[in-house]
């Protein structure tokens, strides 16, 4: 089925819903960072904010909704998603290996700077010709799949769970990883019929994360 001819608008709506869900998770970590100023919380808040914002470009890029020739939309999709996933992995890896929090701060800022430079060169192209972001989309999505799967493993170790529900966040990260894997397959083999699947995995993952942060409610007040 050609989804682009059926309901591209529906996918854009799902992208907006994804932004709202990822935004709620980002807000939770931002508020936590205000209470406990640890770099890890700031990095996760930034990661989910970047993921949420770049979700807005996925449907637009996949179905060429804005301007078929506008590489910046594809670049924002590719760069934003990769930055968000890389920040999540970086946070859990630095925590797992008990690295100094200054490392996490410096490394995450360096990653963000690279992402900004990457976007700028697609906004104001240099003299040489830039590759089409879609030409390496599959490779980056596969890399994101591996980073998220690794992050899921690191979270599972970190929670030292006893009950099934303790593994909600690793399960959500695995679902996000599967969505990346599906996008990689779509990009490599052009199986457009499968486009709803990564949306399904993504929304399921973000739904689980929302349930986890919703249980925390407003959290303890910063002024107490």
């Amino acid at each position, binding site marked *: 089925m050609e989804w682009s001819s059926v309901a591209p608008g529906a996918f854009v709506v799902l992208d907006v819903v994804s932004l709202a869900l990822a935004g709620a998770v980002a807000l939770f970590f931002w508020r936590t960072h205000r209470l*406990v100023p640890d770099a890890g919380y700031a990095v996760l808040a930034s990661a989910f904010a970047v993921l949420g914002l770049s979700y807005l470009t996925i449907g637009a890029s996949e179905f060429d909704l804005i301007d078929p020739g506008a590489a910046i939309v594809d670049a924002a999709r590719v760069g934003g998603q990769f930055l968000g996933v890389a920040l999540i992995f970086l946070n*859990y890896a630095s*925590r797992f290996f008990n690295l100094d*929090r200054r490392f996490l701060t410096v490394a995450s800022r360096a990653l963000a700077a690279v992402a900004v430079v990457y976007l700028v060169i697609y906004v104001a192209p240099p003299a040489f010709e830039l590759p089409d972001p879609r030409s390496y989309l599959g490779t980056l999505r596969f890399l994101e799949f591996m980073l998220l799967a690794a992050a899921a493993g690191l979270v599972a170790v*970190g929670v030292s769970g006893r009950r099934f529900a*303790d593994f909600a*966040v690793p399960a959500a990260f695995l679902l996000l990883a599967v969505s990346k894997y599906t996008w990689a397959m779509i990009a490599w083999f052009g199986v457009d019929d499968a486009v709803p699947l990564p949306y399904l995995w993504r929304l399921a993952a973000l739904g689980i994360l929302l349930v986890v942060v919703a*249980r925390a409610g407003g959290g303890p007040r*910063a002024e107490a």
Partner: protein
Amino acid sequence: MPRRERQTLIGVVLAELSRAAGDRDASVTQVAARCNMPYDRFKELLEDLRGKGLIHGDDPFRLTPEGRKLLEAYRAWREALRLFGMSPDDADRRG
């Protein structure tokens, strides 16, 4: 006192006070020790909590409804962070 310590400390103190409320032999000194705090600093914090209406004026082991609400919020917040593998205790240890 940095805000990070203060936030986690208030939660720990309220949790220990709540636990001590069911113990007839509990004393302020014992709860201060359980919270790993010097007695003087613990007394100061109790005064602060009393001033904010989180514990009763006559019995420091009795949390007010506002204090219980804050304790529940603190526990729910910690639980969410634990599920993310991001416990604030780990953040404290990393310094």
